[in-house]
């Protein structure tokens, strides 16, 4: 049988889902910034957009655009950003975006029992 919800908080698939999404966000970040320093940087869940990456606010617009395209309607980036002002957005850690995406995506069906 298959079960849903393994990517929920603490579920066995959560760490794998976060690692996969972190890789995807990192790929988009590197393309948006496009400079050498970010190619070499080890981007983790704790990396900050402002202090570590020194992202310009318009680069975050471009990142959100790519992520919206990548994940489609499943991830409501507009709703996510609507409650924050620009300083709160830029002061986020990469992990906050990753966790929001993982929380939004439908959990993959995997083999096994509950």
């Amino acid at each position, binding site marked *: 049988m298959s079960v849903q919800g393994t990517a929920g908080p603490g579920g066995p698939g959560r760490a794998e889902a976060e690692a996969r999404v972190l890789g995807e966000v990192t790929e988009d970040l590197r393309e948006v910034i496009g400079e050498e320093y970010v190619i070499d940087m080890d981007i983790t869940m704790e990396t900050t957009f402002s202090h570590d990456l*020194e992202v*310009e606010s*318009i680069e975050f617009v*471009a990142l959100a655009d790519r992520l919206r395209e990548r994940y489609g309607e499943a991830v409501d980036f*507009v*709703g996510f950003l609507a409650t924050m*002002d*620009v300083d709160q*957005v830029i002061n986020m850690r990469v992990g906050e975006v990753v966790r929001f995406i993982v929380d939004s995506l439908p959990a993959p069906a995997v083999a096994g029992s509950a």
Partner: protein
Amino acid sequence: MAEVIANGVRLHVQRLEPRGGASADSPIVVMVHGMVMDNISSFYFSLGTCLADAGCDVICYDLRGHGRSERPRGGYRLADSMADLAGLLDALGVDRPVHIVGNSYGATLALAFGLEFTARVASLTLIEPPFLIEGLGEEMARSLSQILVAMTDDEVQEWLDNGAGRAISRATRAAQRLLSETTVATDMLETPPFSAEALAALGVPVLAVYGENSDIIGQAAGLAALVPDCTLIVLEHHTHMVLREATGYLRNLLRWWLFDRRTPPPPYVREADRRFATPEWVTQMVPPPDLNAGRRPAVS
């Protein structure tokens, strides 16, 4: 969709919609940012995502020469900016009147667009518009010269090279390129004054917002007196940067304006201990005395 060719120029556009998509009767809101030291991101994060989440079909874009839009050498007169906006609406297939929200120069552009393309406009929200019946071109050029003075200062250059950080340096250098590689400064000088007769006949509701401590607060009363359907909101203790300073209130105000205008506007409650004043270097047109002061270790 991120790029649109409008009026022969490649413009960077972001369309923001509520979850599930906009409907046929969702208000279409177009946001127009300010000149030179500004781009799509100021509206995207302050009002764009918020109003889309509230049910609007939001269009944010970078003006020509700004942000991620193309930077042609010429075409920075007000008439060019209006043609760009009309071309953008055409390219996006927008066929019903839109609510335009403009900040600073973007607000002046919005008002001019409302006069020229009245049938395409449902309402105008003008945040800190430079507005004059006489000498508007000189006023726009004065604003630009403030930026130019600040940017060409040696101390500012040193700060950009050594202490400003990547994000501020990139934004400032983009503005420097716009000013040095295009005709924007001379084109601004040609900005025609508004016609009092045309304004008196404007059949579009206007919401005007100024900061009490703005260097152009003196222009607010003239605008409100001339435009027949004008709601003027003056926010105490705020400056020309009111979009950034009072984002929370402006979100409430715009939700009221777009969805609930039959009721009184939401009251403004100033956040405790927050007071904004226009720095003297802006009003006196001299460069800031020491931009590095905040970054140097205190000497006791």
